């Protein structure tokens, strides 16, 4: 028995979110969850299933359908020292509550002369590919990365989902955790114990020698597939998952580019004005002398997400698109 190998526990991404929330509620007495359909129903994507039963009705609250009310509640409650986890069912619904996010949650500490602390965590769901059309599929991380006062993380694996939720809830600033609906079934190792992933540290998910791919959110997995295809072209790609977009781990990316001399940034958000533009710009500012080619970018076209699966398949970036862009960049 003593010699038995303990098999690491694997969970789907959706259960890792639950595990993260559970860990937060266990370690933070003044943490509680608020959102639409979260308590009784366990959330539309089911990641709050069992929370009500385990922690009782004073730790998870169903709310009226008012995103502005939910974020306002999170701001008000966190100002008292509580650590609310507020749930925004779809990232697209930020449109309903952007004043509370942008003008209140992000700026309140600054404008109150530092006299208020808002340890609020917002979980929200982004991502295309599920035939949910233009109002339930967007990746709007660029909106919130542009707001001083907020932190923004995007977990891409079950392990990161749990760890980043825990870090977000321990943080004394508002943190938005952007989840991806197409990753919910993805399996991965998730330790039982509570653990934190430092916010602002990128993860090199695939070391490589002569090409750097910075992939945001679910595109990490497409980048890994692309890296396999690129091997045939003699390219050994390093894939970096920033995990945190605000703050952004520029050092890790720059160090990689100094080694590889070529870089591509990919996200599923619309390419124009996306966070990839900021990252490409930083690479060019800080590693210009090391670059053998302009930094390439892959993102969605400048149009809303379509519903039709036939159209959506050509909308969302994928491994093939990344490979095509690399070839174009390198003239091969």
């Amino acid at each position, binding site marked *: 028995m003593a010699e038995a190998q303990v098999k690491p526990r694997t969970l789907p991404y959706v259960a890792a979110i639950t595990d993260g929330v559970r860990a937060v509620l266990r370690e933070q007495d003044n943490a*509680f969850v608020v959102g639409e359909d979260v308590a*009784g129903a366990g959330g539309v994507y089911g990641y709050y299933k069992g929370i009500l039963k385990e922690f009782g009705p004073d730790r998870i609250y169903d709310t*009226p359908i008012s995103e502005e009310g939910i974020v306002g509640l999170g701001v008000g409650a966190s100002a008292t020292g509580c650590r609310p986890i507020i749930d925004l069912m779809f990232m697209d619904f930020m449109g309903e509550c952007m004043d509370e996010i942008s003008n209140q949650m992000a700026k309140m500490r600054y404008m109150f002369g530092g006299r208020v602390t808002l340890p609020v965590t917002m979980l929200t769901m982004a991502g295309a590919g599920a035939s949910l059309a233009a109002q339930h599929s967007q990746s709007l991380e660029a909106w919130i990365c542009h707001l001083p006062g907020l932190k923004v993380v995007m977990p891409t694996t079950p392990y990161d989902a749990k760890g980043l939720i825990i870090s977000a809830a321990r943080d004394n600033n508002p943190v938005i955790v952007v989840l991806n609906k197409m990753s919910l079934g993805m399996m991965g190792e998730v330790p039982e114990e509570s653990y934190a992933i430092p916010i602002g540290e990128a993860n090199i998910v695939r070391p490589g020698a002569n090409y750097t791919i910075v992939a945001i959110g679910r595109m990490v997995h497409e980048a890994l597939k692309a890296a396999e295809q690129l091997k045939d072209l003699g390219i050994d790609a390093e894939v970096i998952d920033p995990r945190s977009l605000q703050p952004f781990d520029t050092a890790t990316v720059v160090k990689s580019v100094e080694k590889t001399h070529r870089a591509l940034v990919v996200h599923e958000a619309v390419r124009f004005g996306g966070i990839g533009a900021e990252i490409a710009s930083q690479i060019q500012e800080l590693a210009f002398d090391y670059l053998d080619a302009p930094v390439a970018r892959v993102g969605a076209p*400048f149009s809303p997400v*379509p519903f*039709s699966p*036939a*159209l959506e398949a*050509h909308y969302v970036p994928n491994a093939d698109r990344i490979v095509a862009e690399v070839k174009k960049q390198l003239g091969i």
Partner: protein
Amino acid sequence: MQVSCTTCEGAMSNKPTLHIPHPPARPGDKPDFSYVALSDPGAVDRPEVNTSVRAMAYLSEELIRVMDDDGNAVGPWHPHLDERDLQIGLRHMLLTRLFDAYMVRMQRQGKISFYMQSLGEEAISVAQSMALRPTDMLFPSYRCQGLQVARGRSLVDLMCQCLSNTNDMCKGRQMPVMYHWARGKIFSVTGNLTVQFPQAVGWAMAAAIKGEDNIAVAWIGDGSTAEADFHHALTFAAVYQAPVMLNVVNNQWAISTFQGFAGGERRSFASRGPGYGIASLRVDGNDFLAVHAVTEWAAERARRGHGPCLIEHVTYRAGAHSTSDDPSRYRPRDEYASWPLGDPITRMKQFMQKSGCWSDDQHEKLTAELTQHISESWQDAESYGTMTTGPFLDRSELFEDVYRDMPAHLIEQRDELRRLIGED
């Protein structure tokens, strides 16, 4: 943190406690609709259409009903529709229900990816549509397919939208059931809640500015009243006395969230109207005649320049929220059988049979005729393409209509995509 889970435990302690609304019954419990405030059929009076908001405020708490439990039409709100209109109304409701049932089956068979039915709520869309003018502008929620049916939309068009095929009015860009119909004056359905309430007020204001006597009519559910847009719409409608009819379809459930979470436990949804200075009526939403009469009254009030109306339709969402929802997780399976206001089609049929203008035989024949019409329409719709077999939408539809005219950078992206997928 102190939370009270029953209705009024807070009174026991000297400290504030939070009240968490609870539905009257969860799965396995006996259904309990004792919380639904009812008035007797025919008991509520019908004021003149120019009555002041203050003088008619009680109508927001009463329940306007015409049909009694025995199929008689009683009281001052009886619209005295002729036989032909009753038969058309029943036909539209039945067609809506059969169409919904067919489309739910198609979703189960994997022919479409998603659907939302209006089971149990057919009287609202159909009776309201019939009580309005064809030139009035409608802003439907996603459970208002009866509006499309009653205004004569081809089922093939509705089916093609759900199939997202080459004949899809939305050109592959919208989720199923998010129909629109410019010619039929029906605005696009949106998946984002309540956004159309202020838009309807804007449309109504523009109609008044242009000197028309058309009104705008919008629908949301009980849950959606929690969104800020509800407040914006009522404020603007009241301030400008816009010719708009704002409907709240209180079907008790917003997905899994009980109407108490939208604030329906203490006062009716209609009772919010008078607070804004808006005439408000609460009506039995499963009573075709009552809905028709109330709509006619509110339309006349708006058209004659006496201002907006808020109408709460008390009904029950008999089906799932959508094909992605399973209500047996959160409410008793048989709850609908206990709903005190019955089923709109059953009641209409009972009333018409009692009035001598409908028979079981006619009903059976009509059901068979409509069923056949639906399955023929489906054959027709599939000829424009299905989810799995062509013809498919042109990929350039990704780039059309982002702007009125396609700008140069989108033309470039379109051509780039064509090159990438080898279509060029």
